[in-house]
């Protein structure tokens, strides 16, 4: 039995001393292989008598199991450290930049139009459109702006060479002609908004020869100025995300509405910067009014039965106020630094419901 203990400690030492899987395998073969020391012991059993054989057999088997277990344990340990070593070899510098990917942005004009659509869409408006090149009848006459009307001169109209049956062709000076096209082609109730490009021959710090408007039109039998106020107050508050934004309606004049109102929102200029919200000052934000009966009649809609309101606003102005863009002209410069600074991530799709809170 003395020999067994000696063999066990010898093998255990060899197992523990095996530095890698190959060395361990050599130890295993030397102990448990066909010519191994433990296997050799088993072979001696046959020479023993029955009683001795039983006791020795149990002892030998116990030793064999113990050695096998030790080898297995050592093997596991050696594999783990082998992987660790390999992984250590595979180390990279994770502070390196990622492989370059192009980032793209959506222009603030598109984003603002999408925002406006998302708000009016919730109020049941649908988007209507019309051509950029218009007959002057749609752009002016049908909107109750006859030839030689002072308001017609104030529009700084771009004309193009084409003429159609005596009607001059213009670049639309506002999105309002789409009101006419819609009312001609559709019966009330009507509830539309019209985003689009508009043009005026004016170019300075605060005017661009091309800009964008969103027009709105509601026509049914009962809509009155109270609805106009309710609708536009809600829009202004939702757009700027200020629940208590003061909104003021001021009498004004547009040939195509009667009564007409300009809409101001509250702001403050304290401390030099402009801040939208409750304050001591006002900012004009859009024009509106009840559709002039003459305009309804021009479109073949019975003004004795139907009424409604219309409004229009400048997209760039909305964007400038909401996002703090200081200069109108920069919108069309395509300066990549401006576009990346003021642009929007492609998945930033405006939605009243999807807008994160807090």
């Amino acid at each position, binding site marked *: 039995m003395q020999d067994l203990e000696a063999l066990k400690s010898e093998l255990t030492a060899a197992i523990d001393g095996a530095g890698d899987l190959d060395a361990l395998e050599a130890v295993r073969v030397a102990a448990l292989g066909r010519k191994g020391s433990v296997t050799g012991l088993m072979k001696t059993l046959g020479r023993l008598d029955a009683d001795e054989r039983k006791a020795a057999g149990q002892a030998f088997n116990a030793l064999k199991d113990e050695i096998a277990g030790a080898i297995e344990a050592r093997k596991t340990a050696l594999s783990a450290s082998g992987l660790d070593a390999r992984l250590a070899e595979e180390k990279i510098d994770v502070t390196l930049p990622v492989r370059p990917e192009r980032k*793209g*942005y959506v222009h603030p004009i598109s984003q603002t139009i999408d925002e406006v659509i998302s708000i009016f869409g919730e109020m049941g408006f649908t988007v209507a459109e019309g051509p*950029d090149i218009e007959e002057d009848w749609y752009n002016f006459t049908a909107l109750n702006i006859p030839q030689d009307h002072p308001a017609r001169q104030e529009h700084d109209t*771009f004309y*193009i060479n084409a003429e159609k049956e005596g009607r001059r062709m213009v670049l639309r000076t506002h999105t309002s002609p789409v009101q006419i096209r819609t009312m001609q082609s559709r019966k009330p109730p009507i509830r539309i908004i019209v985003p689009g490009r508009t043009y005026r021959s004016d170019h300075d710090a605060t005017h661009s020869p091309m800009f964008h408007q969103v027009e709105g039109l509601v026509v049914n039998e009962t809509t009155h100025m109270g609805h106009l*106020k309710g609708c536009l107050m809600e829009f202004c508050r939702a757009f700027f995300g200020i629940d208590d934004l003061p909104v003021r309606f001021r009498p004004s004049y547009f040939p195509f509405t009667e009564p007409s109102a300009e809409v101001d929102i509250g702001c403050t200029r304290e401390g030099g910067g402009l801040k939208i919200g409750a304050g001591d000052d006002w900012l004009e934000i859009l024009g509106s009014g009840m559709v002039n009966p003459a305009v309804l009649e021009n479109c073949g809609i019975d003004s004795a039965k139907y*009424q409604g309101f219309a409004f229009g606003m400048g997209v760039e102005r909305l964007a400038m106020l909401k996002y703090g863009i200081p200069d109108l002209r920069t919108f069309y410069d395509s300066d990549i630094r401006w576009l990346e600074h003021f642009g929007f991530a492609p*998945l930033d799709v405006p939605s009243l419901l999807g807008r994160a809170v807090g």
Partner: protein
Amino acid sequence: MKFSLTWLEQELETDAGPREIADELTMIGLELESLDDPADKLKDFVVGHVEDARPHPDADRLQVCRVNNGTETFEVVCGAPNARTGMKGVFAPEGSYIPGIDTVLKKTKIRGVTSNGMLLSEREVGLSDEHEGIIELGGDAVPGAPAAEALGMSDPVFDIGITPNRGDCLGVRGVARDLAAAGIGTLKPLLIEPVEGKFESPIKVHLDLDDETMSACPYFVGRYFRGVKNGPSPDWLQQKLLAIGLRPISALVDITNLLTMAYGRPLHVFDADKVHGDIHVRLSRKGEKILALDGKEYELDDEMTVIADEKEPEALGGVMGGEISGCTGETVNVFLESAYFDPIRTAATGRKLNLTSDARYRFERGIDPDFVLDGAELASRLVLDLCGGEASDIVIAGEKPDVSRSYPLRKHRVKELGGVEVSEEETVRILNVLGFNVTDNGDAWECGVPSWRHDVVGEADLVEEVARIHGFDNIPAVPLVRETNLPSPAVSLPQARRARARRALAGRGLTESVTFSFLPRKHADLFGGVPDAVNLVNPISADLDVMRPSLLPNLIDAARRNADKGFGNVSLYEVGPQFAGENPEDQATVASGVRAGLTGPRNWAGGSREVDAFDAKADVMAVFEQLGVSAGSARISTDAPAWYHPGRSGTIAFGPQQVLAHFGEIHPGILQAMDAGGPMAGFEIYLENLPRPKDGKSAMRPPLTLSAFQPVERDFAFIVDDGVAADDLAKAAQAADKKLISGVRVFDEFQGGDLEAGKKSLAIAVTLQPTQATLTDEEIEAVSGKVVANVAKHTKGVLRG
């Protein structure tokens, strides 16, 4: 339109302060642009009494004055020759700001004597350029009282914006009337006392107009004055005009300006001795010239209204008087004109001659025909009062235009349209104060429109009058309730596709640009040009003179500008209109983009490369994918337009009538012509040409059938002529067995090596998807044979050995 508070108070009995008036003006539609109180600038200055003035001990030209400001006495060193004991002047204490010399006053020692303030000249106060001496105030000025008051400069000046419909508010009285209706005081009565004529006017007036042109000037009132003296107008009149920024000229001219500003009634005065014979109102003759009061000569066409004598035009009716017959200091005999000129013709004349004036501004908005005679009488009285002389009988030509009309205002309409309940009593009061003649007819009020309100042409206007004076603030806001419980889709398919194309392209790393719809003709010509019909008649500048035939030139130019600033590798896109003609159907919506320079910056993981046609093609395909467009059956051909590289561009189309997109590298010649560096790859997707999903094909997807058997991939390499399109070869392979072959992918293209010239090798991977059972080797062999045969048939391709 400017007016001062005291001027307003001559028309309006009110206790309201300037701020209250200003706020009310805005809220009744006469928007305040500024309220300027000159007293603000002078608030530091008071009346100072010079108790004692004696020579400076060390300077000949200076005096040392002891100035009392009402409470204290200061020693002030003064260089003005007129400073003397006992006088009263404008005293500025140390620390006050002197506007005329833009300085904050500091205590200073002048030749050994400390000066504790200053006595001001007109220039220093900012009143005028006068700097000969200090201001001398009247003896009744009280030391310590605000200098602004003593100077008669405590009158706040309002400047308001008048909308084009409110010509009646281009006179102070009209503004006063609106304010009275809004409850800010009471309109004072206007007394017109006709002046008795002492003689018959030697100048007669003839309206040389026919039925067709009579509208140009249907009514003319004149009067002759003899023996007048046309000196400077009195202080009160000069002050009034100066306060609103008008330069006093002479008594006669100042009277006409006063009437213009007070009542919106422009007048003209002729020096009667320079008028030859009678006055003839007629249309101008083509080529006639007139030297106007602005000192410029104008050449007339044959449609302008002129006031002529027997020789030549003496004035442009409603626009401006002539220099020749203008009144001067020597004028003794005067002919006064108060006429009614047609708004449209007056506006057209002014526009054609590029001539603006206070008169034109009012006539083109429409003046009060009932006030033509009144204006003449009011002016007559002033002429006699200020210039003396004698007035003739009134001369009248034509007839006063009859603008009388009335409209019913149904009693429920203010509520129905205006959305606000206004009591009957208040409604009638408002209309009455505004000058309407209101009769109660039971269900409606019949409202006679005052002669000065050309803008009121129906019931809606009456509702507006009541609502705006009652106050838009008082209209309760009512939610605009949706007609359905949940919102319906707001956008149509084309609109949604545009929005989605934008975000798809941004997601691929292109940045959206918004460029003008017009561009230089030379750029348009590089991109196919545009018909003459869409040239701008009046471009903003010579290089923005035609509508764009393509979005690419603006994007290329934008990339060039960025490169010039040091940002060469930009990728830009735009979704917007292009124009092939003037009709609505000639306008197409295009999603277009340009990638310039390199695909990206140098980096540790590998280099970057120059952009190429496949970058543009990938952008097109990505947009198709995002828009749900299946373009699998579309043909890719190599006939892209001439602005693309002829060998590196393609067209995706369902036939010549339905081009979906062009893509490719931009032609180097085009880039060179636009001074842009290369390379650039671009694309144009014609959004309206993309196939629409079939009607009735809702959100429902086709059933998914999954095979239980693994697909098998087999590779083939074919040698073909190098003109064979890879896409054609792939399509031929695909068609070999439509049931079994689920996909074909070209994975290699090779030329040169041991291939003969004019040949290339195309390698494809063909995926076989069995559905019934795993394929046997024989079955695979059979399909392979069909692929080789079909490719050979369609492309003459030979399997590479």
